[in-house]
Each structure stands twice: as C-alpha cells, then as structure tokens.
C-alpha cells in the first residue's frame, strides 16, 4: 500500500488529492495536510470584496468532502520534511503541528511514500512596511481578507453618500509582487460598484503597479489579434482603465505604507507618494517556511528549496540573462531533482526565472513582477502530478507519461469588470503557451491563433459559470471528474 501526502488544500493540492484517490482507489492511502478547514475558490474573492457574494458562497468545509472520498485529512501546519527519514523513521516523513481546536499545538510525524507540496505561498505582508489588513491596506488574497475589505469599502461608500471624495489606490504592494490580474479585477469591480450607486464621480481611482508596461501581468504581456491588428495587452489594458476612469502609475516599487500615503520608488530611483482613503495592494509571495532535514537531522533546506523558499523541481535554475531565457527552462513534471518521490505544484514550485523583463532602478530595487502560477495552471499541475504518481504506484516504473510545462500549456484568465447577470462585464483573455516560447513563435512569443482578449457580458457569464463548475467539482459532486482542469 502506497501512502501519498498532499500538503495544502488549495486549487492545486485539492485537485491532486481528488485525482490521486480516484486513480489509486481504496488500496492506497491519500492524506491531505492543510492548516485551513475550508476550501476557497480564490477567483471569486473579488466579488466578496465588493459585497456581491458572501464568504459562504466561495468556501466549503473540507472535512466532509474528504470523508466522502476516503481521503485522510489533518488540519495541521507542515513544519518540516524529512525526505531521507531519520533514526526514528526508516521512511521519509513530514513533521506537522495540528491547528484544529481539539488538537491545537500537538505535533505528529507522518510517513509517506510520495509527497506533493502544494502549500501555496506565504502572503508576505511583512515584506513591505505598513502593508496588510492588520495594518493600513486591504487584501483580497483570502476570503476573510476580502470580507474585511468589503467592510472598509462600505465605510468609504458611506462617506461618498455624504458627498465626500475618496481616493482608491489598487495594485501591487511590493516591487516583485505578482497576481496583478486579481488587483486589476478589484479596481474595476470597485469602480463598477461605485458607478452602479451613482457615486463614481466622487472617486479618484488609481492603479499602481510594478509592471514595466500595463498588461504585462507578470508574463511579459501578450499580443491579441483583433480588428485587423495584432495589439499588445498594454493597449487593451490601458483602454479598459481609461474607459473606467482609472488613472495609473506604472514601474512603481511600493516600499512603505502609512496611514495616509503609499510611498514608492520609480524606475529612475526617485521616491514618490500617493495619498489614499482606501488601498488594496497585493503583497509579495514567499515560501511557507517549511524546513527540510536529512538522515542525520542536518538542515538540507538549501538542497530542497530555492532562496525564496519555493521548492526546486525539474527546471533549469542556471542563472542566465533575460535574452537567454528559454521555454525549455520551465519544469514539466514538477519532480524534485534531489528526491524523486517529492513533487511541488502551483505557487509552491520555484520558477526558473521570470517571464517579464527584469528592471532594476539605480538604488538596486528590482521592480519586476514575478511569474503568476495561480488558477488554471495550478490545477493542471496538480492533476498531472497526481496522474504520474498514480502511474508509478500502479506500474512500479519511475517515469512520467503526463507532462504540463507552463511553456507548453495555455491558460484562460477571466478578469471581472463588474457583477450582474445583465450588467456584468469581464475581460476574457487566453494565452498559449503561458511562458513565451520565442524559438517556436519568434514573432509574438505565443501562438496568436489561441490568444484572445475581449471584454463584455459573456465574459461575466464565463466567470460565473467557472465559479459554479469548479465549486461543484471541488465538492466532488456526481461526475466531478468529467469537468476538465
């Protein structure tokens, strides 16, 4: 009997666990270890942040779903992994600390044959002074952050109803933050909500971003074929912001937030500030801080994890200049090179390099988005890793018939720009592949036939459909496995 442990129950980890159990059946053990008791469909947090969905609509309890599927579940925090075992354990194991109310603080060592690290990121609010819902800014990274943001947004709306102007600053809160798409959605949804309440004229809306150009989104931008032109996403994104009356500050490395203003450096190294009444800034992401120990209990974290705390996988991590970055540098199996029975998916794996061209100002501050690995690619990675592990368990072979390099897979990104079955809007963007492949597609970096960018009511329907479809799938309702990643 094989024992598979999945760390994390986000989009990637939950997908991996569901598919592993379905493929392996009752004869093998699948256990999910996650500090969260709820699953959350993160893409819909935006709507919680503008009061269009309740938190209950975007989350559900994990325990009943895992019980139904026969998946083990421990509500605990992974503290360290021991891929060589140690004197007490001949087999590899994970040290965990329980966080469930009835077992809080208890520690346990859980052995495994295969380990899937899908912990997601640590939201590194501490990386920027004054950032985060505990300090001066809002967040939509989790459902409770989004609910808190909605509460603060309502306070601004109340002031506007009395005729006061309010300044909203939405964007990235760290020079190397990613997930610009989520922040972009939130900016547009706030403006749409204010316009619906006929308060838009009292809002000064600002988009602040670390992107070199708008529409970069951490993936070096993209090109869209439309109306007889091939247009960069820069034009597409700027047009949406202008239409919504949102002004922007680009190439901004936010370094400090106080109760009145956001302080940032630009690409020339000059310091500026912008005052705000409401700010939602995405933090930088870091590894969750799990340590790795060898057979003699020596620290081998450097061997297993990259400097940012993300896990090293089958990528080419050789440092090289931007001009030499290749699609082939990106991993396809997500297997640890040091320990073949360990995998990392979603945000937990260390990318070999960025997709956006690095930009460093004269003070040495890198103002460059890190590559996004959330949403659709996360789910696909979880699925492919699960399929490969199931294959290895069943056949005894250590090969990978399934692969999912971000340089070989496409992604769909639906950017909400307002809620409502008849009044909603969203921009549907697709790219193929996610990582530009300049050798295969020398002119545009990607297959232009697969790339679309279009805004409209249908986009909102698509986002709404994906919400219900993937919540259904995650709850493992009948025939869930027929819904593709």
């Amino acid at each position, binding site marked *: 009997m094989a024992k598979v442990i999945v760390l994390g129950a986000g989009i990637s980890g939950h997908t991996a666990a569901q598919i592993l159990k379905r493929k392996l059946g009752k004869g093998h053990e699948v256990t999910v270890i996650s500090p969260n008791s709820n699953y959350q469909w993160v893409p819909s947090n935006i709507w919680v942040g503008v009061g269009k969905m309740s938190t209950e609509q975007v989350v559900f309890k994990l325990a009943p779903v895992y019980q139904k599927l026969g998946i083990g579940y421990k509500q605990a925090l992974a503290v360290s992994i021991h891929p060589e075992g140690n004197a007490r354990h001949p087999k590899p194991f994970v040290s965990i600390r329980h966080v469930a109310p009835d077992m809080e603080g208890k520690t346990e060592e859980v052995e495994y044959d295969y380990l899937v690290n899908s912990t997601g990121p640590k939201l590194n609010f501490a990386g920027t002074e004054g950032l985060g819902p505990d300090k001066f800014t809002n967040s939509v990274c989790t459902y409770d952050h989004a609910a808190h943001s909605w509460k603060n947004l309502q306070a601004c709306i109340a002031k506007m109803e009395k005729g006061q102007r309010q300044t909203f600053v939405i964007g990235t809160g760290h020079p190397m933050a990613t997930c610009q798409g989520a922040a972009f959605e939130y900016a547009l949804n706030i403006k749409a909500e204010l316009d619906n309440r006929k308060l838009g004229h009292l809002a000064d809306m600002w988009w602040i971003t670390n992107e070199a150009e708008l529409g970069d989104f951490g993936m070096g931008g993209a090109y869209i074929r439309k109306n007889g032109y091939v247009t960069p996403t820069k034009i597409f994104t700027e047009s949406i912001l202008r239409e919504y009356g949102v002004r922007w500050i680009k190439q901004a490395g936010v370094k400090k937030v106080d109760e009145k203003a956001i302080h940032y450096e630009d690409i020339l190294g000059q310091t500026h500030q912008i005052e705000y009444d409401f700010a939602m800034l995405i933090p930088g992401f870091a590894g969750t801080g799990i340590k790795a120990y060898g057979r003699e209990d020596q620290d081998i974290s450097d061997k297993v994890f990259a400097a940012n705390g993300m896990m090293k996988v089958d990528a080419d991590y050789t440092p090289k200049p931007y001009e030499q970055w290749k699609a082939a540098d990106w991993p396809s199996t997500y297997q640890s090179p040091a320990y073949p029975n360990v995998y990392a998916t979603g945000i937990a794996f260390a990318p070999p390099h960025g997709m956006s061209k690095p930009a460093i100002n004269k003070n040495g501050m890198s103002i460059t988005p890190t590559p996004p690995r959330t949403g659709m690619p996360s789910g696909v990675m979880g699925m492919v890793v699960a399929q490969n592990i199931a294959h290895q368990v069943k056949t005894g072979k250590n090969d990978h018939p399934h692969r999912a390099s971000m340089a070989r897979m496409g992604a769909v990104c639906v950017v909400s720009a307002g809620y409502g079955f008849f009044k909603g809007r969203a921009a549907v963007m697709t790219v193929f592949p996610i990582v530009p492949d300049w050798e295969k597609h020398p002119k545009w970096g990607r297959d232009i036939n697969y790339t679309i960018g279009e805004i409209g009511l*249908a986009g909102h329907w698509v986002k709404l459909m994906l919400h219900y479809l993937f919540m259904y799938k995650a709850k493992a309702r009948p025939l869930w496995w027929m819904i593709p990643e």
Partner: protein
Amino acid sequence: MKPPIERGVPSEHLYATEPQGMVRFLRRSLIWQTFRFFVFNFKMLRIVVGGHS
C-alpha cells in the same frame, strides 16, 4: 461617471484608446454576447484539450 480629464497634465491615460458606441452596445447585446459565450467556451476547450498531455 468618470472624473473630468485634467487637460495639460502629462499623463499616459490621455493617450489610451477608448471604445465608442458600437463596441459598447455589442458588449451588452444579449444576442451578440450569447454567441460570444459559446465562442469563448469553444476556445477555452481547445486550450484545455491541447494544453497538456
């Protein structure tokens, strides 16, 4: 309602494109958007099927 454009203030947003009547109408047209909904689903499915082994 959008805030008034500050004329004379050098800002990139003054140089951005903005959709006009026909585009705005099509973005809300139930007939056109129903058609686009199926187009998007087809294109997404093409990416899902072709995107990973």
